[in-house]
């Protein structure tokens, strides 16, 4: 039988925590990427390590979107889901993850559970799922695994991988090889046992699910550029190595930590070191110490860690210390949603410190940008003698995607430590009046001795409380941002350069926004989008771009008041974070739509929102014309 050729499918694997659904999905995604499919994966992570089993809140798993073209986001509703128990599906249904016709491959072991209560829960759920329009197949997955291993809790995931590889017509040997890679370094017995499970799953799907046999052809590639497949946090780690930075100083925090885990493994081969500090403050202070001593360092954290680091960021701004700070954003405030997605730290990053603390802020939109912006951040930090914050988010952190393998070169690396003699006539802060830029002496340079201080200081780094000195040094630090902006080009417009609605995004939403905008454009709507990477300073030319659209709005994953909510008036409405900045900076009445559901934005939801706005813009416009 020939497989049915499809252009795209969204697959989910959902289980209790600890059952290996994520490893199964990552391996399945890697196989897809290696076969040339467009791939995007996103992990479904409960906030607790061991949430109660068989509960909706304990749903742990992964979504893999595979396509014949480049895939840039998680997509809308899933096409096929494998569930290790029925309860975990409830939370996915509540999150709108499925549609009528979604194929559900459900382990039926719970139908014959010793507990009659569990039997009933299972039976009720199956009825309910079918009422929702899900196509439920009750399968003896657990039982089939028992024929191969004693405890299917360990290994069921590879059985499922076998099932999926058969359903999506993936080469069986390739699957076996991928398992060998996944378990590299483990005992031969473990690898062969997992391969046996995989083979059993493959056969199981062929026997029991022969009606589901799909093929997703590879993408047509214009070149043979080699590719790599990683998640965003690994890309950050690779960026740190490629940048020539030698030190990452961190404190464990979700969802940033895996970047440091990765580095701890491979960094020493690059001569680098991961310092696990005693707290977030020590982590950044340690990095500042290294940077001050001429080895620009990086600290990687998330929202609550950023909050603790603010005083030290102020020191780095005030004393003009190059430093790279990566903030893998999560839901806030306070402990918030540790494993969920939010773009809620833009304003606190921009304005978190007391006084005026201008700094460079970049936002990665894609996984390859998690790499390239870290490299750029190190260069900007040193050229502009300032901390640079790179914002990513939980969506990029755990999302896996194939991307063009970067060509490493020496220009990416930090320059060698300069220990030449400093010209004694040059002050420690020899600010250029026009640009605010200056060179810095590095400890060890003869005649460069100065005392770096967080106190207001003169160009000689002498403490000064004089009015003019403070005004002047503050102005010089601020001017550096204007200098940087003068080197930037206006953002590229996705779509026509004029129209009814311009959508502005930042961060990981780029794929979903562009997909929604493209759909609307196909329907004849005059809509375009721009996506910002530089948030401080902003990319130039925004006012000019905005002026060619009837309405401008942002789509963000942070909180803003719904204009129609109780108590909300145009005067008290709180806007989404980028929208707030754009309103200040351009004096354009930039609107926004943003939510804090904690999950990645789906293109269909964005499209619905934009369609409503377009309808409103057009009706407002025709009313004006009348």
């Amino acid at each position, binding site marked *: 039988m020939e497989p049915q050729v499809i252009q795209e499918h969204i697959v989910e694997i959902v289980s209790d925590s600890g059952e290996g659904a994520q490893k199964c999905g990552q391996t399945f995604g890697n196989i897809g990427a290696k076969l040339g499919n467009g791939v995007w994966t996103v992990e479904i992570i409960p906030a607790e390590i061991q949430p109660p089993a068989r509960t909706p809140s304990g749903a742990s798993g992964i979504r893999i979107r595979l396509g014949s073209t480049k895939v840039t986001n998680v997509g809308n509703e899933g096409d096929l889901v494998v569930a290790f128990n029925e309860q975990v599906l409830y939370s996915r249904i509540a999150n709108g993850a499925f549609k009528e016709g979604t194929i559900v491959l459900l382990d039926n072991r719970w139908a014959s559970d010793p507990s009659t209560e569990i039997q009933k829960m299972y039976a009720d759920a199956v009825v309910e799922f079918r009422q929702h329009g899900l196509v439920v197949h009750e399968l003896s997955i657990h039982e089939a695994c028992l024929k191969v291993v004693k405890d299917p809790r360990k290994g069921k995931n590879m059985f499922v991988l076998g099932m999926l590889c058969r359903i999506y017509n993936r080469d069986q040997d390739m699957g076996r090889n991928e398992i060998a890679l996944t378990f590299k370094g483990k005992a031969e017995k473990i690898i062969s046992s997992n391969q046996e499970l995989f083979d059993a799953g493959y056969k199981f799907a062929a026997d029991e699910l022969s009606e589901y046999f799909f093929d997703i052809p590879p993408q047509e590639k214009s070149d043979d550029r080699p590719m790599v497949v990683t998640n965003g946090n690994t890309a950050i780690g690779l960026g740190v190595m490629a940048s020539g930075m030698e030190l990452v100083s961190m404190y464990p925090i979700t969802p940033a930590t895996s970047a440091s885990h990765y580095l701890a493994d491979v960094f020493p081969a690059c001569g680098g070191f991961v310092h696990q500090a005693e707290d977030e403050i020590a982590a950044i202070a340690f990095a500042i110490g290294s940077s001050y*001593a001429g080895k620009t360092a990086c600290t990687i954290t998330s929202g609550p860690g950023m909050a603790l680091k603010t005083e030290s960021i102020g020191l780095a701004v005030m004393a003009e210390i190059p430093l790279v700070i990566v903030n893998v954003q999560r839901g806030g405030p306070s402990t918030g949603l540790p494993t969920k997605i939010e773009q809620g730290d833009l304003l606190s990053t921009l304005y978190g410190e007391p006084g005026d603390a201008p700094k460079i802020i970049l936002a990665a939109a894609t996984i390859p940008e998690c790499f390239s912006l870290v490299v750029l951040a190190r260069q900007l930090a040193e050229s502009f003698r300032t901390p640079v914050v790179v914002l990513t988010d939980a969506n990029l952190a755990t999302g896996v995607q194939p991307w063009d393998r970067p060509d490493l070169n020496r220009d990416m690396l930090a320059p060698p430590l300069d220990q030449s003699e400093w010209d004694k006539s040059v002050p420690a802060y020899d600010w250029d009046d026009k640009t605010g830029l200056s060179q810095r002496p590095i400890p060890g340079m003869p005649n460069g001795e100065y005392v770096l201080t967080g106190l207001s200081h003169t160009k000689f780094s002498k403490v000064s409380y004089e009015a003019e000195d403070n005004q002047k040094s503050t102005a010089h630090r601020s001017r550096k941002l204007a200098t940087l902006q003068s080197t930037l080009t206006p953002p590229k417009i996705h779509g026509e350069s004029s129209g009814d609605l311009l959508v502005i995004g930042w961060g990981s939403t780029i794929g979903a926004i562009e997909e929604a905008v493209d759909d609307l454009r196909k329907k004849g709507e005059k809509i375009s989008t721009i996506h910002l990477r530089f948030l401080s300073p902003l990319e130039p030319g925004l006012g000019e771009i905005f002026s060619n659209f009837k309405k401008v709005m942002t789509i963000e994953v942070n909180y803003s008041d719904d204009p129609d909510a109780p108590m909300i008036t145009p005067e008290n409405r709180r806007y989404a974070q980028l929208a707030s900045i754009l309103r200040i900076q351009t004096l354009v009445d930039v609107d926004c739509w943003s939510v804090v559901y904690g999950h990645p934005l789906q293109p269909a939801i964005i499209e619905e929102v934009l369609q409503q706005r377009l309808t409103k813009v057009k009706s407002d416009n025709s009313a004006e014309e009348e």
Partner: protein
Amino acid sequence: MFGIKADWSLDIQERYFTIDDYEGNEARWCDGCGDHAVLATAHRILRDAQLPPEKSVFISGIGCSSRMPHYMATYGLHGTHGRALPLACGVKSRRPELDVWVATGDGDCFSIGAGHWIHAVRYNMDMTILIFDNQIYGLTKKQTSPTSPIDLKTNTHPEGSFLDALNPLTVTLGITNASFVAQVIDWNPPLLYETLKAAHEHKGTSFVRIIQRCPVFVDGITKELQNDSSKLLLLKHHDGIPVAAGLERLFPESREHDPSDMTTALDIARDETTKGIIPVGLLYKNEDIPCYSDLSALGHDITDEDKIAATNKALDAFAI
């Protein structure tokens, strides 16, 4: 041969440093403040060691004592309150060849920076920590510090402080990897010099608590000790701080103490709280404890080629 170096002429080119080469801005501490003595001692130690000024970095937090870097002509880093130690550890982490000193106070180190105190001692990086302990907050004007004696009247405790003073010696000795713990008074210049010199020469984190005069806010505390040195207990040992013969006479109370003996060191340290006997000298020293900076600095001299090769190898693992 015969005692004449073949390259003797090069010696003429060598730099010779005087005290002036280490002196920075004029110190702005109050008259009679003990900090002046510590500063002068640091100048002398660097001069005697003939360390090029560009090779030393003085790192501080916030407080009176933390102004010290400004009064040095070396490199300096005057950071944020409580964070001198992580800043210093960071400096040392990838620049192990730099000579790192930390100037911190009882508020900076034992209160707002207490977490870092524990961990920096445990890291045992090669640096010299000078704790200027005047038992009061000076810069912010007379608030109770962790080492303020009980009942001391301050602006935050006008009826007298409630708590017994923290004992920094027992705490530090209790930290795993403590490798050099000494205590000294600022008003005995030869002893101060010998103590800081020994601390500076020790490879590892040298913790020196300097009991320091603050004539403006708590003149009485140190006056009492100056007038009646019987409350001080001089620790003597051939492995300890060298004490000149004439100097010993200034200390009516003294005892032999082997600085490798941790149990006795803890007893002596505890006596400061329980009996009011203040030890002066080297309480503990262990040269065999590994320095974290030896680990953190690994690879700091790696070539660009090797960095690129290693990164490419890392990328290979993700190639498709």
